[in-house]
């Protein structure tokens, strides 16, 4: 079992601070690293994640752009082919849809299609929004679309330690990396070493051990799964919680081994379930199972567009309560359905007041 805690560091840093520090350190180490994107240089600094970088590195390395996501993606790819290491930042993952042509037809393909003559060391940072009226077009988790395409890597760190380590690894990677952040993780803190370090892609973390069911939480849903684990413990169910950290490459081994032990696998995605990351994880685990396949389940966004009003929005997302209830039904199929009597909104989520 690995944990995101490094005993050598007692310093606690927020997810925002971790992202910021990773970029600053890599920019110090490698003059080819630069940040590009709408508003990366303004006083808000992408919720603080790029704050201070402009003052330190100047406009050549922290560049605001015209509202031209398609071209700026291509320009970043071209600069990457020339040996630079661009970090293209998007304040919302929804805006990656304007970049799909370049990301999928060019960035993902170039190394292969050109027989290894070019590399595209590009990082695309994108933030998934939630609550306070983010609604239809500021809330989408589109990671599975990118997982589908060979040539891209996809990571979705859920804590400050992994945020720094994964971003450092992404910047140093010679491939295009889709870096999936979640707005509600930004205020969370974890011990984060000051010196640069990398978190290897393709290694899942077991973040809570258990024996009755395996919960896999993707992006923000990892936080909800950890809370669900506490609720389940109250009724004597021991849940193992896994954070895949990286979705492509995906550490199926760790998840399959856990599901093999617990006999139950519930994947909770911060996205829709149809053709999603959860579908992939469940299928990959079942394909490996010899003999006894685990009982499997998927949870994710309701199969609807995300509404803005909180009254409807609360039922759009899975939460610790609904996850615990579903897990209970999987572990004790004969029992009467149970749902924990708990506040469905986590404290740091309740503290989040928009606008973005």
């Amino acid at each position, binding site marked *: 079992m690995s944990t995101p805690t490094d005993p050598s560091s007692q310093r606690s840093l927020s997810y925002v601070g971790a992202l910021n520090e990773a970029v600053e350190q890599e920019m110090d180490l490698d003059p080819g690293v630069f940040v590009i994107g709408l508003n990366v240089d303004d006083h808000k600094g992408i919720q603080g994640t790029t704050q201070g970088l402009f003052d330190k590195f100047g406009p050549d390395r922290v560049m605001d752009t015209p509202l031209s996501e398609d071209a700026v993606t*291509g320009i970043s790819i071209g600069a990457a082919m020339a040996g*630079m290491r661009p970090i293209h930042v998007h304040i919302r993952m929804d805006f990656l849809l304007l970049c799909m042509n370049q990301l999928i037809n060019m960035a993902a393909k170039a190394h292969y299609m050109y027989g290894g003559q070019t590399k595209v060391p590009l990082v695309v940072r994108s933030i998934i929004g939630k609550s306070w009226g983010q609604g239809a077009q500021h809330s989408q988790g589109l990671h599975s679309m990118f997982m589908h395409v060979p040539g891209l890597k996809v990571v979705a760190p859920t804590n400050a330690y992994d945020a720094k380590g994964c971003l450092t690894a992404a910047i140093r990677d010679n491939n295009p990396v889709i870096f999936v952040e979640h707005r509600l993780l930004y205020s969370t803190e974890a011990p984060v070493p000051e010196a640069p370090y990398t978190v290897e892609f393709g290694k899942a973390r077991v973040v809570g051990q258990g024996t009755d069911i395996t919960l896999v939480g993707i992006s923000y849903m990892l936080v909800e799964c950890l809370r669900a684990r506490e609720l389940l413990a109250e009724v004597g169910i021991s849940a193992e919680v896994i954070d895949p950290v990286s979705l492509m490459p995906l550490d199926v081994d760790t998840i399959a081994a856990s599901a093999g032990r617990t006999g139950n696998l519930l994947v909770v995605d911060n996205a829709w379930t149809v053709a999603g990351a959860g579908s992939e994880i469940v299928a990959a685990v079942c394909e490996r199972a010899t003999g006894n396949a685990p009982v499997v389940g998927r949870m994710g966004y309701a199969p609807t567009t995300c509404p803005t009003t909180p009254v409807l929005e609360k039922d759009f997302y899975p939460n610790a309560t609904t996850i615990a209830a579903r897990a209970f039904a999987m572990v004790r199929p004969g029992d009467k359905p149970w749902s924990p009597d708990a506040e469905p909104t986590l404290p740091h989520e309740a503290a989040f007041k928009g606008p973005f």
Partner: protein
Amino acid sequence: MSGNTPDPETLARVYRSLRLIRRTEEEIARLYPSDKIKSPVHLSIGQESVSVGVCDALNDDDMMSATYRGHAAYLAKGGDLNQMMAELYGKGTGGAGGKAGSMHLVDMKAGVLGMSAVVGTTIPIAAGYAFAMKREGRPSGEGRITAGFFGDGATEEGVFSETLNFAALHKLPILFVCENNGFAIHSPLSNRWATEALCERVRTYGIPTHEIDDADVFTIRRTAVDAIQAIRAGEGPQFMECKTYRWREHVGPGEDYDDDYRTRDELAPWQENDAMATTGEMLDAAERDAIDKDVEQRIAEAIAFAEQSPWPEPEELFSHVYAD
């Protein structure tokens, strides 16, 4: 030749390049029915003067980016002919080991950025490469530049306008070259453009433009030389619109004048003005014959190289998905 009469060395070099491209593509067309070429081919026959005129003005360490109709640009920039032919045959010795075919030719050593079959996609990538070149910190006048080729259809894609704006804003060292052959597949400009004032549109971004209507290779070359000098001096991007004409069908080896979207009459003036023929006539016959012979030999060698080269090993399917 509109006052752009070249010195003898340039004339010979330009003719050789035009001849090599024309004859290579004619050979591709000749071989095509044999099914040895495992790739759709978009021939440049008739359009060579644009690639040759511009690429002759580039330095070896400059970069060039082009489209699926890229044989001419590839060869004009000095791309390896053996590797190109092997690539068309799908052989392991192709420039991309058989993963590119005709539509994605690449030769980074020769300054040929990879080509793309999705219209318009290479325009921002060429600009991105130029963006990196600008940061190489070479003295003014000595910097590297990128020339980006694309068709008239590509200028309708949003990314074209986005890239012009970005390139002008950041004074990127890039020469945009639109090869306006009047058609996107079979669709004429009149179906697609509200006005033909392409250069006027581009100028509104603050980019100097050059419109060349007669496809004269030495006019194109002279224009490119001057534009590139300004670009190297740090003045930012320039744009050339070169009117030209595609003699063959959009894709494939044949002609399509009976297909009801254009007539052979339209071709006639372009054929009379053919750059290869007119530059050839400017050369002394013995010199021209020597070049022609040499070109035939190089092409024959490239075809033999492609024929004799091995297929890629099956495990190559899985190489280069990710870079190390």
